[in-house]
Every structure is written in structure tokens, then in C-alpha cells.
């Protein structure tokens, strides 16, 4: 049930965001401050997700095997590895840390 509620809420809102321009034939104008800040929502939210997905366990911040994966991802990114290689390396590092731990 949670899954369908998520799909309905995210799907309907996403469509509304996409369709506002086409359905008003581009006549809609955004306030300047919204126009200026929207490009920065993505780095803010994804960086927030990096923190929660790596360090959050319930309502605490913990350092566990996921942090090993993130550290490996940073190294891979600095070495300019392609995105898929970064993701696979991080997952493999975390899996290895768990197997050894």
C-alpha cells in the first residue's frame, strides 16, 4: 500500500510540475527568486540523501560499513571513474567490509 501511495503522490505532482509550462503555452512566469534557487535544489537534496542513506539508522547518526562504500565512491569520483563504476565500487566495498567484519 505504501508503494502505491508513493507512486500516486509523486506521479501526480511530477506531472503537474512538467505540465504547467506546456498547458499554459509558456505564459506562466516564475518569481525571480524561485527561478534563481531551483537549480540548487538538486545538489541540496541529493547531498542530504547522501548523508541520510550513509549515516542514518532510525533517529541516530552512525558510522558503519556504508561509510566505507561512500569513501570508496569519493576516491572513484576523484579518479574520474564513470558513474556506474563508482556505484559498483561503493557497493562492493561495503559488501566486503560486512563480510570481513
Amino acid at each position: 500500500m505504501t508503494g502505491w501511495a508513493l507512486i500516486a503522490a509523486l506521479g501526480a505532482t511530477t506531472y503537474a510540475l512538467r505540465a504547467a509550462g506546456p498547458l499554459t503555452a509558456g505564459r506562466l512566469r516564475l518569481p525571480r527568486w524561485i527561478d534563481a534557487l531551483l537549480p540548487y535544489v538538486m545538489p541540496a537534496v541529493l547531498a542530504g540523501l547522501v548523508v541520510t542513506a550513509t549515516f542514518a539508522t532510525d533517529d541516530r547518526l552512525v558510522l558503519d560499513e556504508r561509510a566505507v562504500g561512500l569513501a570508496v565512491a569519493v576516491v572513484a569520483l576523484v579518479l574520474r571513474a564513470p558513474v556506474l563504476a563508482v556505484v559498483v565500487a561503493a557497493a562492493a566495498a561495503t559488501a566486503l567490509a560486512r563480510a570481513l567484519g
Partner: protein
Amino acid sequence: MPSVAGIDRTVATIALAVLTFGISFGVLARAAGLDGAQVIAMSAIVFAGSAQFAAVAALDGGASALSAALAGIALNSRYLPLGLVVGRSLGGGAAGRAASAHLVIDESVALATDAEAGVDEARFHLVGVTLLAAWLAGTAVGVLGGGLIGDPADLGLDAAYPALFLALIWPRLRAERGARRAALAGAGLAAAGVVLLPAGLGVVVATAGAAAAWHAGGRPHPAAEPDPAEEAGP
């Protein structure tokens, strides 16, 4: 480079990347507990890679459906200005525009828009439909493969999310001070939110981190925009 039905090398390269990330999404979404029909419906209805990964990651971390949706909605807020860019140029009457709106993604707008020539509607549709097909096909393959995986934690799949999210913003973190400020603020707000707020809301408050870019000088420089060919998903 010969093209088939107008699909040139650039579009084919991006389609391949989208297909690959569709597979990853199918696997991870199944591991997060969604059933196969839900995962495929999500890719068809939402059609937004980073938001789908974000929502599923939030769900996997114990967030409610609403919190998970809000995380995805924050990421998809960028479709509002993208829709405004192409909105004036789409034909086909109200019904045609309503259908075309579903194809508003970063790649379709970027590849169809030329600073001088304006919006190429045929190319917008070509890129949008091709990537929707690639995203759905990848998701379906991932769903089938994901059903075969045992405990996702044994494979470190939970560490795939943060690595992916960091990789997606990495080019902008290198190029733009505003993006670095927004990311730092978002990370700090999310960390505080984990400790102080109900489960899943940490990601939602991270949205406010965008305000930290306020004094970094308005819009990102066009040259700092990520190359669409290096983007990971729709």
C-alpha cells in the same frame, strides 16, 4: 554517423546510460520492498531517475510514503522551469501538449533547445520517447533480475544509493560554488533532521539548503551545466 529514425549517436549513448540505470533502479526498488508491478508503474508514471532513486532510498530508510514522495518532488521541481522552456513551442492542441508534458526531462529539453533556433519539437519528442522506452525496458530487466537476489545488504546495495547521488551532483560540485554551498547546507540540514525530526523528514528539510546558494551569483553559468551525455538517467 548514420542515424536510424533520427536517433543519432548522442541520443543512442544517452539511451544506453538510461537503460543501465533503469536496470539498477529495478534491482534496488525490488530490494527496497516494492513489488514488480509497482516498480514498473513508477517508472512509467514518474519517469524521473534521480527522484525515483531518492524516493525508494527514503522508503528503504524507513520514511513514510509522504516523506519519500516529498524528497522526489523536491528533485522534480526543476521540471517546472524546463516545462516553461518548451511550453510555448509545443503544438498539437491541449491534448497534444498534455501528452508531450510527460516527456519533459533534462535530456529532451537540453537536446531539443538551441539558443538561436529555439525548440525543435520533433527532436524533443524523439529524445523523450526514446528515453522513456529505454527507462522502462531497463526497469523491467532490473525487476526480473532483482527477484533473484538474496539479502541486498550482503551485496552492499544500500551503499549504492549515496554513491549514485554523490556521482550525480559531482560535476556541479566541481564547477559551481553555489552548488557546493547548497550541497553542504543540504547535508547539514539532513544530518540535523535525522536526529531531531521524525523518520524520513531529514531529506525533506535538506531542500532548504538550496537557499545557501543565494549569494553565490544567481543562475549557474551555462558552461558549468553537466554534459547531457554524462547524465545518468531521465
